[in-house]
Structure formats: C-alpha cells, structure tokens
C-alpha cells in the first residue's frame, strides 16, 4: 500500500488506509544506565484519527516504541507499518524522508532551536518535506495564530514562557499535516494549569489536522483524556482494541 495523506478534515487530505499504525511482534533491546532493557509488543493497532495513550514504568520502552513508529529506530524483530508504509522495510534515508513527510514529534522539553524565531522553528517542521514545502510559512503563521501566539511570531524561544514554547513545539509538529503525531510526555515540563490547557490544544489541533496521536505519559490523568490507553512493561500490552 502506498501512503497518500492525512485523514479527512484538511485541504491536503486523502484517506489514510486502516490501520494508521500497526506494530506486529516487535522486539527491541537497548542499554540504559548499565542495564539491558527489552520491549516486546506482539500487536498494536491504532485506527486513523484515534488518540492513544502509552503508559508504563520508566524503562518500559514508551519512548522506544514512539521512535520505532517514527522510524528513528528499527526493531530487532517484527514489523512496523505506519499509514500503509512498511517502515521496517525502508532504508535509513527512506525512513528519514518518511518521517519528514508523515510524522510529527512533540518532546517533553520541546527541543526548540534557539537561533531561530518561533515562526522559523515551526517552518523547520516542514523544511525537509518535499510534499508541502510551498505555503509552509503561511501554514506556520496560521497555526501559531490559532494557538494564540500571533504576537510572538518573531520571538526566539528564550523569550517565550514554557507554555508558549509548548505551543510552538506543537505547531512545529503539526505544520505539515502529518498522519501521525508522536508525543513524548508533552506536559511533563508544565505546571498543572498549563498542562491541562496544552493537553487540550494537542488533542484539538491533532483532530483538526486529522492526525492520529500516540502519546507516552506516566500521568493517569493525562491518559484519561485519550480514547484508550496501552500499557507497556510488567502489566503487558492488552490485546488490540480493548479498553484501558
């Protein structure tokens, strides 16, 4: 199957093949803090537009799973299919291209670049994609304005509050209308009030753009806002499509 675009709701849409995310028999080992960790995931299926929370103890592989879906890592065994593309079958450069076009990342510490303004940071999200390079600036501006940052387009991250930085990071992740939004503890650095606001923004913006959301979190309250929760680690992953 070839990938064709995000789900209905945007001017750039063509239907996403079901499922949006499929992980089968994935195994990944890594070393952290002198210990060897292992992620085993027999099956994970996420429908287009679904919002799924990932929970598990630290070391259970939440971030690793996100990276497998995003194509930043390849599993030691198993396959990963995202929006119809067999990510595990791609070479590294192809995976990079795939990630540029169809995946948006949202990090706990945002990882915005200091030498660039808010607007430029968001534009970077579309810098490596061929598909939607034209109009990136307009989309970036529109997104930032919708997120309430119209006055701060030309401010560098150092001159933005944490909550504002979170919004810029969100805009960067969504600027080229990815099929999948991968969020890694996005509210972890925020205080309670901002966390709630940002979480709502994440879910709403993703829905607007038609992106499927996979969000790693350790906070049950955050997980509660999602359609369902997948548990990793000791509790074991649930069979697909069941409730949390």
């Amino acid at each position, binding site marked *: 199957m070839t990938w064709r675009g995000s789900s209905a709701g945007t001017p750039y849409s063509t239907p996403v093949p079901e499922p949006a995310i499929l992980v089968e028999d994935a195994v990944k080992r890594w070393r952290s803090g002198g210990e060897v960790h292992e992620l085993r995931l027999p099956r994970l299926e996420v429908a287009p537009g679904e919002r799924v929370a990932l929970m598990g103890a630290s070391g259970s592989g939440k*971030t*690793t799973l996100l*990276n497998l879906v*995003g194509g*930043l*890592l390849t599993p030691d065994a198993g396959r990963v299919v995202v929006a119809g593309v067999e990510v595990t079958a791609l070479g*590294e*450069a192809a995976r*990079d*291209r*795939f*990630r*540029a*076009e169809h*995946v948006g*990342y949202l*990090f*706990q*510490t945002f*990882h915005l*670049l200091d*030498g*660039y303004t808010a607007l*430029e940071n968001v534009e*970077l*999200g579309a*810098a*490596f*994609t061929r598909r939607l390079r034209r109009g990136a600036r307009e989309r970036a501006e529109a997104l930032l304005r919708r997120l309430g940052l119209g006055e701060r387009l030309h401010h560098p991250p150092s001159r933005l509050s944490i909550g504002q930085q979170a919004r810029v990071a969100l805009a*960067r992740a969504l600027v080229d209308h990815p099929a999948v939004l991968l969020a890694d*503890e996005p509210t*972890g650095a925020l205080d309670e009030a901002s966390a709630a606001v940002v979480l709502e923004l994440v879910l709403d913006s993703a829905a607007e753009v038609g992106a499927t959301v996979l969000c790693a979190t350790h906070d049950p309250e955050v997980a509660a806002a999602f359609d369902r929760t997948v548990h990793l680690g000791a509790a074991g992953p649930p069979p697909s499509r069941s409730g949390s």
Partner: protein
Amino acid sequence: MVLRNLRRRPLATGLTSVSVALGVALFAAVGALRHAAEHGFQRSAGICDQVVGAKGSPLQLVLSSIYYLGASPGNVSWDLWRELRTWKGVRWAVPVAIGDTHRGYRVVGVSDEFFSRVRLPNGGEGDPLRLAEGRVFDYPPERFEALAAELDAGGDAHLEDHPEVLRAVVGAEAAAGAGLRVGARFAPAHGLEGGAAAERHAEAEVEVVGVLEPTGTPIDRAVFVPVGLYHLLAGHRPTAETATGGARDPRGLSAIYLRTVPGMYQIRIWRRLNDRLDAQSARPVDEVRKLFRLVGGLDLALRAISALVVVVAVAGVVAALTNTMAARRREFAVLRALGARRRTLLGLVTAESAAIAFLGGVLGLVLAGVLAAVASEYVRRNTGVALSVLPRPADLALVGAVTLAGALAGLLPAVRAYRTEPARVLASQL
C-alpha cells in the same frame, strides 16, 4: 540555514574568516604586485632598445639612466655619440646626462630628439611623449660646442646671455610636486640628494617651457634640460686633470639611448659596443627581466608563507567548528527527528565551513586590493613607475580554491554531525 548558523556565532565566524582573509590577502597581493611591477617596469624599459654607458654593471647602467636610481657607472664621450649616429642599423641615438636633483626630482639632460623619438611600448607603434602644456626646448646638441668654447674663453661671456639654452621640460609629477608650471623658474642643485646642503648655481636659472602628460614611468618624475647644459654650469667645467675625457670627464655623457633596427643589426651593434674598452651596451628589457627573476625568488617565498597562513587559518575554521559539534548535538538530533537525513547534516556543516572560507576569501581579495593600492602608490612616489593592479581571473580562482579547501576540511567536523544518534541524544535530555 547555513547563514543563520553563522550569524549565531558572529565572533567565531568573524575571527576565523579574518584569519583566512589575511592569508588570502597576502598571497593575492604579492602575486598581483609582482605582476604589475614587472609590467610597469618593463614598460619604462621600452623607451629604447639599448643603453650605452661606461663599462660596469649593466643593471646599474639601466637603473641609473632609465629609472634615475643610483649613480651611473661613469661617462662616455660625446665622440661616441657622434659616431653612433652614423652606424648602420641605428635608428636614433639620444645623448643623456643625469646628475642633479631639484627638490627631489632628477634633472636630466637630453637632446631635443628625446621628445620626438621616444615611444612608450603599448602594442604596435607605442605611445609618443605628449605635452600637457607648453612646448619642448629647441637647442640641438651640436650648438653646445660653440657655446662652450665661447664661455671657456672667459671674459664677459655669461650663460644668462643665452636664454634659449636655459629651458626645461618637466614631467607630470615633477611639475605638480615642485610647482613647476610653464613660466616657472628654478635653479638646479648639485648632487644626488636634494636639500639645503646642495650647491646652488646662482648664476643659472632655468625657465620651464613645457610640461609632459603623465606616462606612468620615471619620466614623470624628471626635469629635462638641454643635454649640454651641465657642462656649461660652474662646477662642471673641466679642469686640467679631467679634460682628458673618459669616464671621469665631467663633459661626458651618462648614457646614450639607442633605438636600433631589430634583428641582426641589433645584435651586431650590441656586440660591437660591448667589445669596446670605453663603453658597454645594456638592453633595458633584459636587465629588468633579470632583476625580476631575482625578485622572483622572494616573491615565491612570500607566496609560500601566505599559502601556509591560509592552511593554518582553514585549520582554525575546522577547529572552531569541531568545538561546536558537541554543543550542537541536540540541534542535529532535533533536525533528524524532523526528518533531515544524515547526508543533509553532513552537507550543512560542510557548507558552513565552506561559507566561512568563502567569506575569508572575498575579504582577503578586498584586503589585497587595499594592500596593493598602498604599495603601488609607494612605488609610484619613489620611482614614478605606475603599477596598475587590477583583479585578475587568477584571484577568483583563488577564492574558489580556498572555498573548496574549507569545504573539504569541513568534512572532518561534519562527520560528527553525520554520526548523530538522535534517539539517544533526545532521550538523554529528559
């Protein structure tokens, strides 16, 4: 994106660029000056085919008689000049007497023919000497003998009674520098240096009747008088000891400019003259070429040193960039997460290195232009030779080479960027 990265660290970028610029500037300036100097000096050397003078170093003869630098190796006799005019193959022969200076500008005695015969090489026929204002003097050398006899007889005969011999034609720079416009009068001083200690021949004041157009040669810095005038000034009259003629004869000529028929005649005349015991003939073009070959060794050494400076500077660029690689790990990891390929990061860092080198190269060329302008002005001030230092295609190639070197050298730190493992870097930021 490359430009933005460079602007983020203006001090590092600036310093490394400047260090590259210094090396490039030195390299380019030395090369350009050498070329321009050789060309300029060769142009001046082209006013005649051969210079005849007293036996000695041919280089000294050429330097003193054409560039008015240093003392002449001695004199040759008037008889030789008279003889040369009759030789087959000699197109013209101009007698030259060099000696005094006036306010730092050399006073040179020449015949009228100097102004009509001399051509400055400029392709084809060459450029004649042109007047900016006034006219040339008109006192054929043949008249000097009679005049000399008259004055030697003593009595009431004075030089001032013959205003037609007390005339001067001034080069463009000498006119401007010493305020010698048409109608001005001055008294030539004795000796090589001008200055308060110079003897003044109070009895002889010369009137300026013409000013030449600039030529870009030592002619601009000279004051020309009728050639026999020296011998009529007090202090140049022969005494019993010196009246025998020969190299120390104050009535002798410093040099004779010769224009010959090219080919066999040229060679034959040259040989005949050098075989004589009382004279030598030097070819200005050859002597200048030999001189620049000597200079060439220095030129090569300077260029080698400046090439080394460029190498060191590029190494500095690489070092500076490498230092930032660790700090920029996060930036590279983020870019990879956003979909940048490894190759893109490699290209980014390489481009940054190349950009700094390019900046340095361009800056260096500008600097070289300034250096060359200053140096050529200095040469012009001191010799009258005008150097035209223009940008050459070789300079652009230099910038290209330096940029390429920067790019290649930039591969070293770029490899670090290439090797970024985004997953590990980003996770460790938690």
